[in-house]
């Protein structure tokens, strides 16, 4: 009941404010958004997205327009920031097939804006480009086969006129792939899967993996039992990073299919690891096997970002990967050598990382076998960080403080592999799963990369599944599953400001400047998953076991997502 009262007061407050600022902003130099001014942040927009699905993506601000892409069935809206009341300049709803509703329930819908074009992917496998100004469709191609359970994943990345996309279908036994389209025409340039013979994966001469030195042919095939690689999974996970220095696209690969490990003996390459591909040709350059023969279907989830920091005295651009298996990896983007790996949450599944090969040493007590339950496996599904959806729940790095702000989940799980049966288009998981944990079940962890120790942490009742925004002004924005949007001080982690959005936050906050020069922060509420009213919490394995671990998370009174924009008055 209290939240409903809170909601109504906000709306009244909101309308009042908007009225007050109807006029042009004062011409004076706009106040900076920093620790001091944070408490005076006010919501200046609360736009409903008319969809009850999970808003895992982010909005994109380009010039005076704010582009929003709603969950499936997707709807694109261009919001004019320069006109009072923020009217919608144009909106476009691509044709949608209801068949993909269940499949694309929580995918990252962040669009990309480049060269006047707005590029985004839809739940039913379409990649679409619109003209940023008018919203007219430039091209619309199908890049994923929804009937097999394949889904386009992650925000598109535009590099030198090429749109880099990833497909994912690990839970449906689909071999995920990386693909590049020509930004102008939408023509497919190349497409490589992450499992299968070298020809499919794009492994040629220039490939060398530090951890797997013996260069054998078709390792994406021979590390699987006969024929099992065809339903291998291993789609895109943890987003795509473009390393300008080495001209590399670095992305994570998802977990192998099925979740039941007994039917896929072997290392199941190239799943659950980090792949680096040549930007132009897509050919693989190096690979790090983070979880060979992944027992817990975590894949290389979590977040992947590049950071400029001084490592042992030299200033280098390194790759930071806060992984779903609970470790933070510092990796040299040139050849994928793992420089450092430490656990940022309590981990029971593994006892440590082998320094040379970077592969985890397994904890025998946490071994899993078919038809028997293994209890207390930490981190629990979908992982210590990352929203379980490629490109969601990403960490943020602030060079000034040298801290990596990781949205973490402290849940553990009971996991029981079962007989998996492959039917095209139906889930190919074969496991019973219950997440377990007592509050605090989540934390914002400020990880000091140099000394591989957490500087500070803010503990939360529920796991943090949304992304983190670290602003130059020394503020760290993050959202929680019970609807709070908070700002913490980047230095010591004091929560300076918070706002109740009424529905769980799993999206990525974005900072941009309003036409009148004021700094603004935008976030999307609406968490889907357990908040989906169709979930019955009396079944402990519902919503991938979340019904057990998050049994006390109240479903939102209004499941419709909203776009909130905050700015200083």
């Amino acid at each position: 009941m209290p939240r409903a009262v809170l909601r109504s007061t906000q709306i009244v407050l909101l309308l009042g404010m908007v009225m007050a600022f109807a006029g042009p902003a004062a011409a004076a130099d706009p106040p900076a958004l920093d620790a001091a001014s944070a408490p005076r942040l006010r919501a200046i927009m609360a736009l409903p997205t008319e969809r009850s699905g999970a808003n895992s993506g982010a909005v994109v601000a380009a010039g005076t327009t704010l582009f929003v892409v709603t969950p499936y069935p997707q709807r694109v809206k261009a919001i004019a920031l320069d006109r009072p009341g923020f009217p919608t300049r144009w909106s476009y709803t691509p044709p949608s097939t209801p068949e993909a509703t269940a499949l694309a329930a929580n995918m990252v819908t962040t669009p990309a804006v480049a060269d006047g074009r707005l590029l985004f992917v839809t739940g039913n496998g379409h990649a679409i480009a619109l003209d940023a100004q008018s919203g007219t469709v430039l091209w619309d191609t199908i890049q994923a086969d929804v009937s097999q359970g394949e889904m386009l994943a992650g925000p598109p990345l535009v590099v030198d006129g090429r749109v880099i996309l990833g497909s994912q279908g690990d839970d449906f036994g689909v071999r995920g792939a990386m693909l590049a389209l020509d930004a102008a025409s939408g023509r497919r340039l190349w497409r490589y899967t992450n499992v299968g013979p070298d020809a499919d994966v794009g492994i040629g001469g220039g490939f060398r993996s530090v951890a797997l030195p013996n260069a054998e042919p078709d390792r994406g095939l021979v590390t699987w039992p006969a024929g099992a690689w065809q339903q291998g999974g291993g789609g895109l996970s943890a987003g795509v990073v473009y390393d300008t220095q080495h001209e590399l696209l670095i992305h994570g690969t998802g977990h192998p299919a099925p979740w039941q490990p007994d039917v896929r003996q072997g290392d199941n390459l190239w799943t659950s690891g980090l792949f680096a591909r040549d930007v132009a040709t897509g050919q693989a350059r190096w690979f790090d096997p983070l979880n060979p023969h992944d027992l817990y279907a975590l894949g290389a989830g979590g977040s992947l970002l590049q950071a400029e920091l001084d490592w042992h005295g030299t200033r280098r651009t390194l790759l930071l990967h806060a992984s779903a298996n609970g470790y933070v990896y510092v990796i040299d983007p040139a050849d994928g050598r793992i420089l450092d790996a430490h656990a940022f949450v309590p981990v029971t599944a593994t006892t440590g990382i082998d320094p040379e090969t970077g592969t985890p040493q397994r904890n025998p007590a946490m071994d899993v076998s078919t038809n028997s339950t293994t209890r207390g496996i930490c981190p629990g599904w979908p992982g210590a960080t990352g929203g379980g959806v490629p490109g969601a729940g990403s960490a943020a790095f602030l060079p000034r403080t040298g801290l990596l702000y990781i949205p973490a989940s402290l849940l553990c799980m009971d996991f029981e592999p079962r007989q998996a049966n492959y039917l095209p288009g139906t889930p190919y998981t074969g496991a019973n799963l219950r997440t377990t944990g007592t509050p605090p079940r989540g934390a914002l962890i400020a990880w000091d990369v140099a000394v591989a120790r957490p500087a500070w942490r803010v503990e939360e009742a529920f796991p943090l599944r949304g992304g983190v925004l670290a602003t130059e002004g020394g503020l760290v924005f993050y959202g929680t599953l019970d609807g709070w949007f908070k700002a913490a001080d980047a230095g010591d982690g004091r929560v300076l400001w918070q706002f109740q959005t009424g529905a769980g936050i799993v999206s990525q906050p974005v900072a941009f400047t309003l036409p009148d020069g004021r700094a603004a922060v935008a976030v999307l509420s609406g968490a889907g998953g357990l908040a989906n009213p169709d979930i019955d919490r009396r079944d402990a394995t519902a919503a991938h076991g979340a019904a057990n671990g998050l049994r006390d998370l109240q479903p939102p009174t209004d499941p419709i997502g909203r776009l909130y924009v905050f700015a200083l008055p």
Partner: protein
Amino acid sequence: MIERCVLFAVLSLTACKREMRDLRSDPPEAAALDQVRPMENRIGGAAPRIMYALGQPYEGNAYQLNQGKRLYDWFGCKGCHAQGGGVIGPALMDGWWRYGSDPVSIYLSLRDGRPNGMPAFGQRMTTDQMWQLTGYIRSLGSYRPSTAAPSRNDEMQARPAENRGPAAAALIARPSR
């Protein structure tokens, strides 16, 4: 004294019906079981007439319901519906049926699929398998557990088994829709 005998006879008849092991449905019988006449919106409709001739085996026969529970496990229903609680598919035990909870509606959902992503199993399963699965799904969502309802599986405990009426357990606030 007579009523007691009659009661005993009726009880024993139901017992026979519950425990009969009809291991094989003949092809013509299976074909007849597929003669479902759905309504236009494909929700509800007339059950095949042979169902009543067979004594509605998929309602109260323990063996058929047990086979239905095995098929629920074998054909990957848990991937979308978990053990009745729902994952990316809706829950089956919360008594809220978007397409109706009568046998024909469930059978149609299984055979022809449903728009929001429910795949069609008509090509994947045989008719009596689909009727067994229909019987099980109804026992999963029923409020008064029947004595023929299956018991728990030898697997991770998720909810009370069908013979303990999971749907009748403490209901959390109904979804708004």
